């Protein structure tokens, strides 16, 4: 099979995710956009794995998923803590980590 269509889809998803991270202020939405990018990458890997008939890409996808899950746990708890203290999830407001 040809992976072309999967790659196009992944590219579209990744672009949506990247633009989402750059454009949206809401931390939760940015977070979802990040997930979108990760999954776009997963999709590409699975597609190529299928095309080449190997399993490496699929195994790698599992790693990405595990890491994403762990990242969600940490990331969401940080967002919750920020929300509790500042009553807002705006990323622009939380800009204290600078010199």
């Amino acid at each position, binding site marked *: 099979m040809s992976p072309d269509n999967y790659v196009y889809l992944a590219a579209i998803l990744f672009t949506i995710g*990247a633009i989402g*991270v*750059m*454009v949206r*202020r809401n931390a939760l939405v*940015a977070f979802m956009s990040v997930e979108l990018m990760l999954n776009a990458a997963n999709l590409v890997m699975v597609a190529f794995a299928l095309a080449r008939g190997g399993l490496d890409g699929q195994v790698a996808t599992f790693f990405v998923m595990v890491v994403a899950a762990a990242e969600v746990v940490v990331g969401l708890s940080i967002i919750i803590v920020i929300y509790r203290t500042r009553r807002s999830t705006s*990323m622009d407001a*939380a*800009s*204290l980590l600078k010199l």
Partner: protein
Amino acid sequence: MITLTTVAATGLFSYSWLMIALPALAAAILLVFGRILDASGHWLAVAAVAASFVVALVLFIQLLGADPEARSVAVPLYEWIHTPSWTIAAGLQIDQLSILFALLITGVGGVIHVYSVGYMAHDERRRRFFAYLNLFIAAMLTLVLADNYLVLFVGWEGVGLASYLLIGFWQHKPSAAAAAKKAFVMNRVGDLGMTFAVMAMLALFGSSAFADVNAGAAKLDPFWATAIGLFLLLGACGKSAQVPLQAWLLDAMEGPTPVSALIHAATMVTAGVYLVVRSHAIFEAAPIAATAVVIVGTVTLLVGAWIGTSKDDIKKVLAGSTMSQIGYMMLAAGIGPAGYAFAIFHLLTHGFFKANMFLGAGSVMHAMDDDVNMRNYGALAKVMRVTFLTFAAGYLAIIGFPGFAGYFSKDHIIEAAFDLNVWVGLCALIGAGITAFYMTRLMLMTFFGEKRWQPGVHPHESPWVMTVPLIILAFFSVIGGVLMNFWIQDWLEPATGAHVHEVSLVPSLIGWATLAVVAAGIAIAWFVFGGTKKIPATAPASRNFFTVMGRNDLFGDAVNDTLVVAPTMAASRGLVAADRTLWDGAANGLGVLTSGVSDRLRRLQNGQVRSYALTMTAGVVLVGLVVVLVQLG
């Protein structure tokens, strides 16, 4: 001539290292144990030097009893440096020359120690003073007893250190601190010559032992013989305060008076003469270097005497006189085999009478509340009977009054100088006349004439610890000449290769001429300063060339300043400026640049997550573009 052979040390000789070790140990104890020894330490120091003197005396008597062939004893101590190219053994050489020096150093040095007990009685740092004195003695003994030039150099530097510590002993006086520094630095110039000489010896002979150098000197290339000779002369000039390295000696008077006596009579300045005589084989192989020694000696004997005539500071007159007398010794040492014994002879008699007069001057200063200006003295002969009589003995010895010590030793040098060259002889003869003039002037201004004492000064005779040393030294100032006149040439012949001259008690023609010149010097001094002549409280202004030159030490300091100090200062100022502008500028500029760039870069860290995301995306796109372009290319 007796050939020089060296026999191995046996019996008492194997203990000769004790001579050096005892004062060194005493110095260490005095410095380490601190205040515990404040009350008694000085006697420990005196005992150490006395013990050294006893060892030296016993060894001397042993040598006297030995066959002339067996009078040079080598005492190996240990192997000091071992490299594939050189093996340097530290050892002592007890021979006719070194034992005489050891006796002079420990004998006169010991007497000066005793004197210092009284002189420094009220100084709260007396213990430290005695520690330094002992260090001085130990270093000087190392210098003269060493059997090779490298060990000699250790003593040489030790003497430099001790003189620095002692000249600057009253360090609370800026002038004393400056004088100590000056002495140290000028000595370093001489030491440079000394190190060059030792390095040349190691390169040419593969050894710095006296025996090897003496054996190899005759076969040496004339160029290298001359070079080594001149290097040694430079070293000798530094230590012995010969022109052109003479300027430190007059400033060295800032030290306590016993130090002056020690430096001028028993140690330090005699080292240069010792070095030249010890290296006679080199100088015999290098006539140019030997001539240079004669010239340096002749010039210094006149310069020193000239300075002596125009100083009002009693110690500076004596300092000028030391320069002058050491000049005589250098002259004699430069003459060659005919002069070596006379150089050492004069050195020994000078050791007696100069120590005597310095200690006498100290006694006078003690009585006059540490005033050194002779214009404030006068009429002390009756008040200070012992000091006056002993000083008079030294005075008669230095001017060469018949029968006194200096008469024999100096006349021989003048005669030898005439044998060498009429002009050199004439210079030496004139020097004797000037010596008589300034010493008579010193005597008249100090002990005779009217009382010109400052208000509140009540002169008194010094305590016995100070007068007994004076009496001992005066005794030797009187008989030292007769004692050694007929003996010293034979004695020194094997060690120096000196030619024995017939000497007699009846003056030769030159002897009579010398006596006449000396009498003229005394007469002129009497005419100017004697009798009831008024001596003004301040030195009269003068435009006389000789007076102005003399009062300013022949502008020795000015010459040094213009030739050495000013260029060095200018160079160092230039370097400082270059350092500040060039190197500091480069380093600081780099820092300013980095911090400026960082300041700009810092603005990128604005805390906005979305802008970071933008940057990252832009970066990824950029990398992607590059990859694509590379692929295409």
